[in-house]
C-alpha cells in the first residue's frame, strides 16, 4: 500500500515569485545612502529574483520598463502589462524549484533638467548603454519608477505572455521601485 500511496500525486500550488532586493541582497538599501533622489552616474545595485514553483522547467523573461507616475503601469485586476515598451529584457530557463538571481547594476547616464521637468534619456545597465524606450519625463523629476514584469513562455501560443496559468487560473506578478531625480549634479540650481 505504501508503494501505491507514493505513486499518487500530491496537490501542487503552481506559482512564480518575483522580488527585487537592495544592494545588500535584502529588502533594504535600494539607493545610495537610502535616499531615493538619485543623481546621474551614481551606480545603483539591486538583485532581481525569480522563483519557479510551477513543478516543471519554465522559460521566463524579466522585462524592465521606465515610467513616470502618470504612465499606465501593469493592471493587476485586468492582468495586463504596462503598455510602455521595455528598455531591458533578460530570458532564462528555470528548473523546477530554482531561484534565479539577476544582479542589476544601473545608473542614469544622460538626463536633462528644464525649468520644471526632468527627462531621462539613457541608462547604463550591467555595462550596456540603453537608450531605446528609456526616454521619460517627470514633473520636477519626481516619481520615476522602474517596473519589473515577469513574462512566461507559452508553448501553445509560441509566445511570451505576461503571467501564467495556474490550474486554469491566470496569474501575474510584477513589482516597481520608485525614485526621484531632481538634480543632474550635486550642485543646487
Amino acid at each position, binding site marked *: *500500500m505504501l508503494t501505491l500511496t507514493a505513486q499518487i500525486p500530491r496537490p501542487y500550488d503552481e506559482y512564480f515569485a518575483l522580488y527585487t532586493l537592495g544592494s545588500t541582497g535584502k529588502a533594504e538599501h535600494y539607493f545610495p545612502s537610502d535616499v531615493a533622489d538619485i543623481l546621474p552616474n551614481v551606480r545603483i545595485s539591486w538583485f532581481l529574483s525569480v522563483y519557479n514553483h510551477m513543478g*516543471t522547467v519554465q522559460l521566463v523573461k524579466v522585462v524592465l520598463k521606465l515610467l513616470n507616475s502618470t504612465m499606465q503601469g501593469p493592471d493587476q485586476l485586468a492582468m495586463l502589462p504596462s503598455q510602455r515598451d521595455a528598455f531591458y529584457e533578460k530570458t532564462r530557463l528555470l528548473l523546477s524549484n530554482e531561484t534565479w538571481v539577476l544582479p542589476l547594476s544601473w545608473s542614469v547616464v544622460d538626463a536633462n533638467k528644464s525649468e520644471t521637468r526632468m527627462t531621462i534619456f539613457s541608462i547604463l545597465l550591467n555595462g550596456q548603454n540603453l537608450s531605446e524606450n528609456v526616454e521619460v519625463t517627470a514633473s520636477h523629476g519626481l516619481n520615476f519608477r522602474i517596473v519589473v514584469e515577469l513574462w512566461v513562455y507559452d508553448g501553445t501560443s509560441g509566445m511570451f505572455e505576461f503571467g501564467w496559468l495556474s490550474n486554469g487560473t491566470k496569474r501575474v506578478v510584477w513589482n516597481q521601485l520608485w525614485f526621484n531625480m531632481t538634480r543632474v549634479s550635486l550642485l543646487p540650481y
Partner: protein
Amino acid sequence: MTQIRDAVNASQKAYSELQAADKAGANITGLAVRFNMALDLLESAKERDKGGDHAGSYRLASEAESSLLALIPEAQSMRDAALSQRQRELYLTMLAVPIEALAVALAVVLVAEVRSRVESRQLRELRIKAGTEGEDTVEEG
C-alpha cells in the same frame, strides 16, 4: 535578422524538448545550463545587431543556434530513457502491491499462529499446575 530569428526558433524547439524530458522525469540540469549559455549568446547577438556589428551578430547567433539544436536530440533521448524507467517503475509497482498485500496477510497469520500457540502452552501449563496442586491437596487430606 534571419540568423537571430533562426536561433530564436531553435530556442523554442529546444525548450519544448527540454520541458518534455523534464516532465518525463529526466534530470535536465546540465542541458539547462547549456540552454542558458546559448540564450546569453543570443542576447549578445541581438546587442551586436543593434550596435551595427552585423558580422559579429551573425557569428554569435549561429553559435547559439548550433548549441540549441544540439540539445534537441539529447533531450529526446533523455526523455525516452526517463519514460522507459518510469514504465519499469510502474511494472514494479504493479508487482509490488500484491506482494506487499500478501506479505502483510502472511505476517498477520504468523502473528496469530504464534499468539495462539503461546496461549495454548500457557493454558496447558496452568492446567498441569492446577492438577499438581489438586494432587497435593488430596495427599494432605
